[in-house]
């Protein structure tokens, strides 16, 4: 594996191999000394062109526990606004002898473009509204640990699909692992052309959360991105919650063994009620610890193997 840009780059076997490594890495988290020598001498740069706390710290800790030298560069404000091209910015950083580049960028496709310019292995840590492959891997890994296998399990993904990179990566990952996926959103928050695209990608769409929820084996709530909501995508927060929120009432109708995911940060009271966020079946915090294990696995496969 040279880069991790999209879930689509991975075969099912590669996903399973990452999960197996992640399971080993997970065990490290319970050790007293959380350190492996695997990436000693390697340098990983976390280059974040937009704010992120959880993803950046997760990658930082993952790199450090693998003994890599980890440097964080906050490039918010974007190279474009400073006048420098993205290519010049990343070439400059990579000229310092970087082995791995973890990149978060507000523009879709940025990680792919960067991978074409640099020799370092590139991990897409979220590119605009396109993909967030490690989030999808950690979500699927979390659910697999909870449900045993995802084959023929029905996962319902709910929320602002148009602006969600998590959704785009998750449908690929979940279907790759044999899950049945239904995505739910009001029509204004469905990505354009999703009707045709979903058929080819093997997932279903619905505008009616109450109709699909009874069949759910897992529920994945997505954040309503208030900062992108200037376009009148729905009439009011109240109306959104009534139509698409995981409310206390909907929680009461879920089977108690149905895990509830949320990539965070959560808008409590909007897309997810506090009762649901804190419910026994909520796996939100497990997602965070799984994320660390997955990112350790990804960095390990990217940088510790032969030829890395």
């Amino acid at each position: 594996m040279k880069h991790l840009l999209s879930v689509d780059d991975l075969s099912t076997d590669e996903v399973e191999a990452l999960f197996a490594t992640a399971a080993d890495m997970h065990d490290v988290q319970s050790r007293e000394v959380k350190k492996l020598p695997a990436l000693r001498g390697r340098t990983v740069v976390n280059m974040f062109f937009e704010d992120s706390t959880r993803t950046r710290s997760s990658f930082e800790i993952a790199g450090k526990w693998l003994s890599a030298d980890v440097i964080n560069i906050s490039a918010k404000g974007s190279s474009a606004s400073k006048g420098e091209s993205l290519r010049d910015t990343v070439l400059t950083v990579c000229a310092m002898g970087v082995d791995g580049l973890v990149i978060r960028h507000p523009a879709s496709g940025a990680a792919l473009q960067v991978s074409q310019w640099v020799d370092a292995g590139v991990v897409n840590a979220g590119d605009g509204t396109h993909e967030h492959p490690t989030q999808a891997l950690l979500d699927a890994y979390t659910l697999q640990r909870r449900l045993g296998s995802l084959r023929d399990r029905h996962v319902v993904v709910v929320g602002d699909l148009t602006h969600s990179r998590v959704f785009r990566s998750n449908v690929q990952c979940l279907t790759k692992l044999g899950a049945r996926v239904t995505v739910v959103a009001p029509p204004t928050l469905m990505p354009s052309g999703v009707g045709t695209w979903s058929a080819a990608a093997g997932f279903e769409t619905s505008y009616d959360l109450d109709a699909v929820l009874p069949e759910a084996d897992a529920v994945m709530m997505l954040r309503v991105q208030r900062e992108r909501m200037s376009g009148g995508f729905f009439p009011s927060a109240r109306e959104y919650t009534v139509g698409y929120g995981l409310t206390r009432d909907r929680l009461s109708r879920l089977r108690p063994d149905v895990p509830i995911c949320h990539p965070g940060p959560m808008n409590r009271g909007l897309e997810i009620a506090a009762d649901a966020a804190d419910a026994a079946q909520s796996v939100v915090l497990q997602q965070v610890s799984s994320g660390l294990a997955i990112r350790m696995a990804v960095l390990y496969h990217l940088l510790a193997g032969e030829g890395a």
Partner: protein
Amino acid sequence: MSLVITGASLLGEKTADLYVDDTGLLVDSAPAGAETIDADGLVALPGLVDLHTHLREPGREDAETVLSGSRAAALGGYTAVLAMANTTPVTDTAEAATRVWELGREAGLVHVQPVGAVTRGLAGEELAELGLMHRSRAGVTVFSDDGKCVHDARVMRRALEYVKAFGGVVSQHSQDPTLAGPTACCHEGELSGRLGLPGWPGIAEEVVVARDVMLARHTGSRVHVAHVSTAGSVEVLRWAKAQAERDGTWSVTAEVTPHHLLLTTDLLAGYDPTFKVNPPLRPQEDVEALRAALADGTIDAVATDHAPHARHDKEHAFVDAAFGMLGLETALGVVRTALPGLSWADVARVMSVAPARIARLADQGRPLEPGSPAHVVLVDPDAAVTVDRDASASLSRNNPWHGRTLTSHVVHTVFGGRVTVRDGALA
């Protein structure tokens, strides 16, 4: 310098010799002591006219200058180009327009006709000095805020009314900014949904085209639709042209770019900013509709929207990269490749005659007969040329045709009797 062009096939039909006297006019007999160009096997067309060129001077001379753009134009077979107004500063005064016109005269390779801005600073609010630009030596007749849409209907109405006084035309960049937002960069459809790119829906063009033809009808004026890109716009234009013909008091004309005749939105799957253009590349069904509309005259002209950019302006994340692609040197080959059944007379119609008529350039787009200015392009119809972006005369390299093989090749270009391109190279 007088000239004899022997054995050319005029518009791909009868073979004849062309004679050019030392004043640059076509004449009916061979002048004494003339230079001879052997045009056996070549097709002769009136020099091409581009309604839509970005020359970047003043302001971005690192991307293109009037001189380098004129060179590219000559190599593409052009003898006139209309230089868009979105320079820095904007071409919105008589002085600015005259300066561009003078730079074109100094370059001397094609007629450079400045386009004036419709509104001051392209801000869409107050009319620019349309009449003064027209009265200047540049004689501006085409006005456009290209790059931006004149979105305010009241301002568009006033512009259409105002230019009637001197036979001007408003060339509209049709893009409703509320439907195609500030970051819109990709045709809105299945691909934009998958790639997570902000969509630029066809309807954002179509509603403006529909509004503007109604405004042109209401004001009894001339409107020109720049770079039409959707089948829906073609439907509106077809209806509007029929109405205009019936009424006889107003008109609507339209142009299509070579790239919208051949390239489709699928090319964006790899996020290559070379293919980022405004309006965006559309799906195949739109491309088919545009080809049909060009062939049947619903779309009047091919215009390049030649948009040179320095390399660093394209080396950003896709959504941040500059819009636009080169087009002057390849336009004829692209049109021939996209529409191999188009007759040479029709090529002349859409790439020379109609653009000259729309821009009211009386000396351009004329029949190749005695009395006409000797603006001539000689084309090898059978050549298959692989495009090399590094061989371009443009200062920029954002060439979407690099590595592609196009049919037909401009061999010689004659501008006002002067050979500007000989054997495929600048003379």
